């Protein structure tokens, strides 16, 4: 069945594939988050670069303005001797120094820009010293000397150098800004691409997972349909066994009995009619067992109709039947205490006859089979014991499972009616009454099956005649015995 093999392989590889898919998904999500954070940081770095460059340029411009204002003030004072023109000059030194320090802060740590700023600082000092000297001469009333200093051109030369250096620093700043910003932009783009790629991968994984889930749902639906078909098939099977076979089988059995009772048959014809009867009875037993099995298996449990019943009476009737059929075998019975409870007497008979039947079948022929029914608080305990070869240790734990025949029966191969369902059905009947069953078996102890049946609801212990009256009052006289006997006969013959 290649299709089945494929299926099983696919299902086996599912958990491993699932684990891999989950790992890949988690890694991809981590990658996407990491890349997005990196992109955001690169973008922040780029705007930081822009902002710093702008601040540095503005510091540079302010520095030049301070110097120009100082120079303009000096010229105004020389022309008018009005000290108010000196105001821009008076605080020019700290202001220019402040702008230079701001510029230095942005100039980074490479040697060249710092050297440029230092040079700018010393040029600024020289220029301010020059202005200060000129103003001092003017204040001393030496106007002509002061004008001479200005005409000397030293001040203009220093100022020109300051401008040239400032222009170089500006160019430097712009180059650095462009370079850093471009790097940051490049990084942002790279991380964004990685984020996008991760997102696409996630999308693909989600699509795959969705497809897988859809397939899973379809498989589940298919399994569900198959299970449904199975249940329908089983129910149909029950219908066939439980309904369609019953009528013709009953007709066969009734006809065989009719022929036997009618008489007038020769010996060979009588034997033939007996064979028909026996065959029909065997089919009947198998059909009943399969019916019980399918009922229990489909989860309905074995149907029971509890009523007030006396397990002592049921047990006595079952044993009487066995003694009649197998007079050579010894069956010892002990019935003690109160046998009354709320049970299905027919099903109780089925349990007892199965256990006693097994004990007779598998037990030693020399030793008696012992049956005891005793009180056990709110329950009765039924024990069926036989001597002989014990149940093998590897069989014992599974003895109540369906279709597990006894080893001996399998070896003998003569027990055609042993479907391996008897003990399973017994267990189900006991369970339907809320009871338990267990088996123990060993060479020295022999084999014992113990059934505990709760009285359900508990009937208070009473002197022997009272329970009988109770049973009689709830049913027609003798009907309990009759129904117990009926089922005993139906199940065992």
């Amino acid at each position, binding site marked *: 069945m290649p299709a089945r093999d494929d299926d099983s392989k696919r299902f086996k590889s599912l958990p491993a594939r699932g684990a891999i898919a989950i790992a890949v998904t988690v890694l991809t999500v981590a990658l996407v988050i990491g890349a997005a954070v990196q992109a955001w940081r690169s973008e922040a770095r780029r705007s930081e670069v822009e902002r710093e460059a702008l601040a540095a340029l503005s510091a540079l411009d302010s520095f030049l303005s301070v110097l120009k204002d100082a120079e303009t003030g000096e010229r105004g004072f020389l022309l008018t001797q009005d000290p108010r023109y000196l105001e821009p000059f008076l605080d020019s030194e700290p202001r220019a120094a402040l702008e230079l320090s701001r510029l230095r802060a942005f100039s980074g740590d490479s040697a060249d820009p710092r050297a440029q700023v230092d040079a700018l600082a010393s040029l600024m000092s020289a220029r301010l010293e020059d202005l200060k000297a000129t103003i001092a001469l003017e204040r001393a009333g030496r106007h002509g000397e002061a004008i001479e200093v200005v005409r000397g051109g030293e001040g203009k030369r220093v100022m020109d150098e300051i401008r040239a250096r400032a222009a170089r620093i500006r160019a430097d700043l712009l180059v650095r800004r462009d370079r850093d910003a471009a790097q940051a932009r490049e990084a942002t783009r790279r991380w964004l691409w990685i984020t996008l790629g991760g997102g696409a991968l996630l999308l693909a994984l989600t699509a795959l997972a969705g497809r897988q889930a859809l397939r899973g749902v379809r498989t589940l639906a298919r399994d569900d349909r198959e299970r449904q078909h199975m249940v329908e098939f089983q129910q149909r099977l029950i219908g066939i066994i439980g309904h369609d076979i019953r009528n*013709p089988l009953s*007709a066969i059995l009734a006809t065989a009995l*009719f022929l036997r009772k009618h008489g007038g048959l020769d010996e060979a014809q009588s034997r033939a009619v007996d064979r028909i009867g026996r065959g029909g009875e065997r089919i009947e037993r198998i059909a009943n067992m399969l019916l019980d099995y399918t009922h229990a298996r489909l989860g309905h449990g074995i149907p029971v109709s509890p009523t007030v019943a006396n397990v002592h009476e049921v047990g006595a009737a079952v044993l009487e039947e066995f003694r009649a059929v197998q007079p050579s075998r010894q069956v010892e019975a002990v019935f003690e205490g109160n046998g009354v409870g709320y049970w299905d007497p027919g099903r109780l008979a089925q349990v007892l006859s199965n256990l006693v039947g097994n004990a007779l079948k598998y037990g030693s022929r020399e030793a008696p089979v012992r049956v005891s029914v005793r009180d056990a608080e709110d329950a009765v305990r039924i024990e069926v014991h036989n001597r002989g070869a014990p149940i093998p240790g590897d069989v014992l734990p599974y003895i109540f499972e369906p279709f597990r025949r006894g080893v001996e029966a399998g070896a003998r191969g003569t027990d055609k009616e042993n479907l391996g369902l008897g003990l399973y059905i017994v267990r189900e009947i006991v369970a339907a009454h809320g009871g338990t069953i267990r088996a123990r078996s060993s060479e020295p102890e022999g084999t014992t099956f113990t059934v505990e049946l709760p009285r359900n609801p508990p009937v208070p212990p009473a002197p022997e005649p009272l329970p009988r009256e109770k049973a009689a009052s709830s049913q*027609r006289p003798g009907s309990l015995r009759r*129904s117990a006997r*009926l089922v005993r006969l*139906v199940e065992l013959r």
Partner: protein
Amino acid sequence: MRDVLLIEGDSDLRAALRDLLELCGFQVHASLGAHEALALFDRLDRPPCVLLDFEVHGGAEILKALVSRSGPRAAPIIVFSAEPPPLDPRVIAVRKPFNPETLLEILTRSCQDA
């Protein structure tokens, strides 16, 4: 000779039971369905023993009608059913397929009782 009202849908089984029961000395009145069965029941002088296939059409209704018609001293009603029918003291359930000897035993005894 005791009357037996047999309500059974399967014709082979009905014929087989009729042959067997008549051979054993019963007067068998066979019927296929509800109306016929109740008419037969009413026509008889004394209430017969009843064999009812619970699964014939209207089986549950026939059972109810028969239980209400037969007095407390009447013979029990034997019902063929795979599932145990609702318990009534006058109803005896027999699961199909049944052993005809068991059936004869029950029938003989309950007819004597009645």
